[in-house]
């Protein structure tokens, strides 16, 4: 149990996917201007990634590895993620319209969110077992969500401040993200 707890802490804080592993930055800058969109995106990523992590793990361990097809990893993972996203979209639209109206617009963006593909690849590279894969597939996007929501709060404040013209928008956003990343670096000392 302790191992899984350690893994979860490391995924959320120490190796935060956005601020320490640099994955998923496009949506990070894109949807963090408002708190609402930030929470929506975070939920959608968690939802898709738990499914994608489990499926790609099974794919890798039961099909790619036994048949020595590991070179097809990139191709098959992206196809799994893309079809999974379309499937989830259809499913939500038909059966849970309330959730769909909240998450719908974020789902297509997830296919090209490198955090999703990235975590699936990390799961395989670190040779996690199935449970560890589930833990990391849940806690990595949770860390993503945490950073995203905190950062959206920051950005709402930045809107009120007077920023020099050339620094406006994305530029100041990146500098702000740098400061947050500095704060998260402190977690590295917890070895």
């Amino acid at each position, binding site marked *: 149990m302790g191992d899984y707890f350690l893994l979860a802490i*490391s995924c959320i804080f120490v*190796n935060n996917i956005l601020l320490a592993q640099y994955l998923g930055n496009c949506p990070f800058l894109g949807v963090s201007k408002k708190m609402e969109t930030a929470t929506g995106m975070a939920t959608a990523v968690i939802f898709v990634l738990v499914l994608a992590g489990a499926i790609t793990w099974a794919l890798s361990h039961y099909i790619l590895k036994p048949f020595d097809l590991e*070179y*097809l990893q990139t*191709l098959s993972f992206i*196809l799994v993620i893309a079809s999974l996203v379309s499937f989830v979209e259809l499913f939500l639209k038909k059966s849970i319209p309330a959730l769909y109206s909240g998450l719908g617009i974020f789902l297509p963006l997830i296919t090209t969110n490198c955090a999703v593909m990235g975590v699936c690849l990390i799961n395989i590279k*670190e040779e996690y077992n199935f449970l560890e894969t589930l833990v990391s597939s849940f806690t990595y996007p949770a860390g993503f969500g945490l950073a995203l929501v905190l950062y959206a709060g920051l950005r709402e404040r930045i809107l009120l401040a007077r920023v020099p013209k050339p620094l406006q928008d994305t530029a100041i956003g990146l500098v702000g993200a740098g400061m947050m990343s500095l704060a998260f670096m402190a977690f*590295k000392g917890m*070895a």
Partner: protein
Amino acid sequence: MRDVIKLFLIVTIFSAVSGWALATVRNLTGERIEIQQLTYVKGPALKEILAGSSNDPITDRFKVPDGKKQIDVFTGVFEGKKNTVAFEVSGKGYGGNIGIMVAFNIEKDELAGIGVTTHSETPGLGARAKTEPSFRAQFKGVSINKPVKVRPEGGDIDALSGATVTSKGVCAGVNDSIEIYKRLKIEILKNIKG
């Protein structure tokens, strides 16, 4: 309906062509990739623990089956005798798995040294398992008859300060390798003689 079938066919054809192209490239580069991986990932650690051997351990390698897995075993020749073997195991560290290359002296049944191949430990803390030779030197000449432990747990290994998780992970990996060595010793001896 015919449209759907047509679309489906096109995507299938795309996937098939892509699969075929990849298989071709894979076949052309496969052998080179294996050699490159051994040279760059395991080479440096191997060179360190088998320093002074008169052969190239990467050329003198053989595979030994262990359950479902195949283990790559590298041989080192010292004083004209093939008396040292090395293979890789992994231990759990703080930032993920640590790849540990462990060498055994067959004649004396003791550890001939360990080297770290791959890791993702914190620089300056756990990463010193790879950068500080004095930590790894403690494993040289250790008997395989009792498990290796860090000092607080009643063993003889001084843990890296500030990196207890990493040090324990390395010890656990070494203990695994000792078990594997005991299990496969007969097979290994057969391969060396043959």
